[in-house]
Every structure is written in structure tokens, then in C-alpha cells.
């Protein structure tokens, strides 16, 4: 059963057409990836779904709610992590989570949410003192305050070290285990391969292909493609993690 439906979505700015007619559906409980180079239209698409910008044409539904008409109801059932993560610098993490839960009139224990993302020991620190990975995790914590059905993550691991990245992957997997739907944009292919049930590959405002990562790989290899690189049992990142350990470094 699909929880998100997008039909012929377009977004035109003055001269530039960021999204040129996109169609896709996301199934409930799925981790769905939007992949593409910078400027492909990933963020624009996601921000239309989040109700932050209005589409020029086409329609989009989340949980049967029209994103352009029932924007407020849509916002109540989604959790959002924006690409540039910023919160009030001089508020503590606990205060930020509390403040945001008030905005949804949803009563949650902010301590539990911070514990979930591994920031409980930092609850009294100000936002500005956090490292990049910690800021991303706080951003995820804030996205959880209304116990959302659908979570949107816009390039959550950009700029993070391998430990922090893998830590976020585990978090995202745990949301899926709870039955939440996750829409993720990234330009790291190994991330998409690790997390996504299906991916849409976007370029120049259009979807080129939608399928599961393994089907897409099979399709390519069946067409006779041979990687110029020798496939090995491990990657350099595996070596790095093996040598430096899995634990997070910033705490």
C-alpha cells in the first residue's frame, strides 16, 4: 500500500525549471531513496512534499492528504530534517526538543527522544557547541517529537565521518523496524544500497529510473557492463572502521 503519491509534479522558478514532471509512489514502511547529482531536483521535490514550497503543477498526497491544500495536516504527520541543520544557538538540546514538541501539541518525554539519538549526555549543552554529527542527530530527534508516520531526511550524512555515518544508518534502520516510512535523499550510492528498499534516480528534474538497488545493479550487469575496478571482499571504509572502531568520536 502506498502512503505517498506524486503525480506529474513540476516546479518552475523565474527562468529555471527545477522539477520537470515527476511521478512516483512510496509504500508504507519503506525506505525510499531519491538519488541524483547536486542540482538534480531532489531537495525541491522533498520540500514540496514537506509543504515548504508550492509546486507549479501536478499533485502530491501523503496519507491521502493533499500536500498543497491540507499542508497543515500533512505537517502534523511528518518529521522533517532539512539539508542545512540549524536551531536556536543559545538553547539547550532539551529546551529545543521541548519547544518543538509544544509546536505539535504532542506530549513526549524529551529525555527519551534524546536518548534514542544518543544525545542524552548532551542534553544541557547549547546547540552551537555540537559537532556536525551531533547536530544531525539532534535534527533527527526534533523530527521525532510528533511520532511521525513519514520521515524526510535530506542528505543526512553529508560531511560526516564514517563512524557518525554508520551510526545514523542504524538509526534510520530502526525507524523502519518501527513501521515508519522514510524518504531519504543522498548522493552516496553505498548509503542508498545499504538503506533503501527502492530508489528513484533523478537528473535534471526528471526521474530516470525507479527500482530496488539490487535490481538496478542486476539490470546493468545483464546488459554486459563490467566494472573497471576489481570487486573485492572489503572496501577501504571497512578497513578504516576495522582499525578505528565503530564508536562515535565526538562525545
Amino acid at each position, binding site marked *: 500500500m502506498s502512503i505517498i503519491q506524486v503525480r506529474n509534479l513540476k516546479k518552475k522558478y523565474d527562468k529555471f525549471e527545477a522539477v520537470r514532471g515527476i511521478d512516483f509512489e512510496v509504500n508504507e514502511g519503506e525506505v525510499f531513496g531519491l538519488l541524483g547529482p547536486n542540482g538534480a531536483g531532489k531537495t525541491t521535490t522533498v520540500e514540496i512534499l*514537506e*509543504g515548504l514550497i508550492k509546486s507549479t503543477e501536478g499533485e502530491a498526497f501523503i496519507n491521502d492528504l493533499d500536500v498543497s491544500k491540507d499542508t497543515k495536516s500533512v505537517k502534523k504527520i511528518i518529521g522533517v530534517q532539512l539539508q542545512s541543520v540549524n536551531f*536556536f544557538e543559545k*538553547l539547550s538540546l532539551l529546551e529545543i526538543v*521541548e*519547544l*518543538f514538541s*509544544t*509546536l505539535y501539541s504532542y506530549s513526549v518525554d524529551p529525555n527519551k527522544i534524546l536518548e534514542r539519538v544518543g544525545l542524552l549526555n548532551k542534553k544541557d549543552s547549547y546547540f552551537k557547541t555540537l559537532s556536525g554529527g551531533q547536530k544531525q542527530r539532534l535534527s533527527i530527534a526534533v523530527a521525532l517529537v510528533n511520532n511521525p508516520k513519514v520521515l524526510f531526511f535530506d542528505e543526512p550524512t553529508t560531511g560526516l565521518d564514517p563512524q557518525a555515518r554508520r551510526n545514523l544508518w542504524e538509526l534510520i534502520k530502526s525507524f523502519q523496524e518501527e513501521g515508519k516510512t522514510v524518504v531519504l535523499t543522498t548522493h552516496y550510492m553505498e548509503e542508498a544500497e545499504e538503506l533503501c528498499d527502492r530508489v528513484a534516480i533523478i537528473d535534471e528534474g526528471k526521474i530516470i529510473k525507479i527500482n530496488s538497488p539490487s535490481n538496478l545493479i542486476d539490470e546493468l550487469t545483464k546488459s554486459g557492463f563490467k566494472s573497471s575496478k576489481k570487486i573485492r571482499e572489503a572496501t577501504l571504509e571497512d578497513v578504516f572502521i576495522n582499525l578505528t572502531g565503530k564508536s562515535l568520536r565526538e562525545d
Partner: protein
Amino acid sequence: MKIYLSFTIAASKMFFRRKSSIFWSLFFPVVTMLVFGNANIIGYSAPNVGLIDYANTDNSRSITEKLKESKSTEIQLLYSENEAIELLTKGSIASYLTINSSSNSNSESEIIITTRKDDFAEKEVVSNLINSVMLEGGDSIKELDNIKSNIANINYQGYKGFIIPGIAAMAIMQNGIFSVVFTLLSYKNQGVLKRLQATPISPSHFIVGHLISRVTIIILQTFLLLIMGVFILGVSIGQGSIMAWINILLFSLLGGVLFLSIGLAISSLAPSEESAPALANLVTFPMLFLSGVFFPIDFLPKFVGYISNILPLTHLAQGIRLSALYGNSTLTTLPQIGITILWLAIAFSICALTFKWE
């Protein structure tokens, strides 16, 4: 309601945690006030001198005419002692003269100069003026037998009495305008407002909560400055009238909302985000000098005075000063309140027409 309250509390916490905001809105005006309050700047008093002519003879009338020709003072004709005392208390005249007729001859025997306690400068200025009128008067003026001086039971607060309400008004303007132009704009730039937009509430809740927090801080700041004036500089504020203090509260509230709205208007009218602080300085800087914060606008050339009378800070400073220094209540400062509200309406309309959340 709960959302506004949460934002108000959050904005207040952030204000008190930011050293620069404490510095600019509390420390800086306090230091300015203490420095200027201790500066010995004299002759700031209103140049108006009252005159009661009880004698009403040819001679007293020619003396009055001569005094009126003087360039350094403005003679205001009065008809009773009560009226004179009232104006002296309010500060609209700095002293008054009484010409009495003598009981036994047809000449005027005396002129009395009444000044406030400790206002020696005024006494000297007015005595010199009378002496010069006598000397230059020629044939039309008969010498008076007696020039007496009298001290009314009214405190003269000197320059510090003038500067404290002025600094309080200045601080309202600075805090109001810059708290929007710097703080709110930085939230906008950092994308914090965008993040709030992704929640079911609109960012207007945050902006309103922020403004409520700032108005509260502005009121506290005004009272802090005035109370420090009482305890550190030893001026008397409000002349013991509760109504005057209530009126000061009203002025800080109106002034706070007014300058916060002007700040919002500046941030939406500024052509780019970088130019907003420059525009804010362009708006506040002239007002610092033309609005009677540091010296009375009577000191300025006439045509500049016209500009001063248009500026919102002039009326805010005047209103606070009338209450702080002379104990005026809301009823007697209606013109100042009216003009402040008029400016508020203008600034509000500009905001409503131009403000964008993005």
C-alpha cells in the same frame, strides 16, 4: 497561547544568555547614563522665563517690552503666582519674574526673580539680563529700587534630570530596532525560521513570541535605568506620583512596540540582508542627536527643529521626561502618546505590507 508563551520564554532565555545583547541593551545605556549624568553640563534649561506684571504701569510695560527683545530668553506673560509655580514645576519655564508696585510712590520698587533650588546658573543669567535692560533702557525706563531673588520650593534636577529620561528613551529605540534587525534576521539567515515553517505552526508565532519577550525586556530596561538614576544619580523620578510611573510604563510599552515594528519594517525594506544593519544605523543615528536625548531640541537651529518634531523618538523622550521629571500623568501627555501611536500605525502598516517570512 501556549505556543506564544513557549516562544516568549525561549526568546527571553536566549536574550539573557547572549553576552552581546546584555551589553548593548543593558550595560551600554547604563554606562552612558552614568557618564552623562555626572557630566556638569549647565544651561540646558528651557530658555523660557515667566513674567507677572502686578504693577502694570507704563514703566513696567516698557521693561517687559525690553525684556521681550532679548535674544537669549523667551518671555512668557503670566497672570498669577500659581500659574508660574505650575509651569516652573513642569519645567516649561526655568524661572519667573514678578514686578511689584510700591505702596508709597508711583514708581515700581521691585522685581523679584524666582528660580528653583540650586539653579544658580539661571539666577545669574536672569539677573544679568535685567541689569542690561536697565542700563540700555535709556529714558523710557526708570530704575527699579530693588532687584530681589527668591527660591521656589521646587527641585532643580540639573542636567542629569534631563539626560536620564533621554537615555531611557534612546535605549528603547536601540533595543527595539537592533533586536529585530540583528537577532531576527540572523534566525532567518541561518534557516531557523525555515525549520519552524516545517512544523504545523507558522513562523509568525515565533516572531510574535520574540516581540513579546523584547517588549517585556524593554520595559524592564526602562525601569532599571530610571531606578538607577534615583539611587545612583540621586534624581527624583515621577515627583512622587504613581500616575507618572504608570505613564512611563505606557510609554515604554508603546515605544517598545513602535521601535520593534520599525525594526521589522527596516528588515523588510532593506534591499539585501547585509544592508539592513546599515539602514538601521541610518535611521537611529540622526534620532540620537535630533530627538532631544542629550540636549533640548530648542538648542538646534529652527529648521532642524521642524525635523525633530516629526521624529518618533522626540515624542517618546518628551513623554518619558515629562512624567519622570515633572510627574505628568497620561492625561497631560496625550499629544506625545498620540504621536507615538500615529507612528506605531505607520510602522505597523509598512510591516503588514512588506514583511516576508522567507
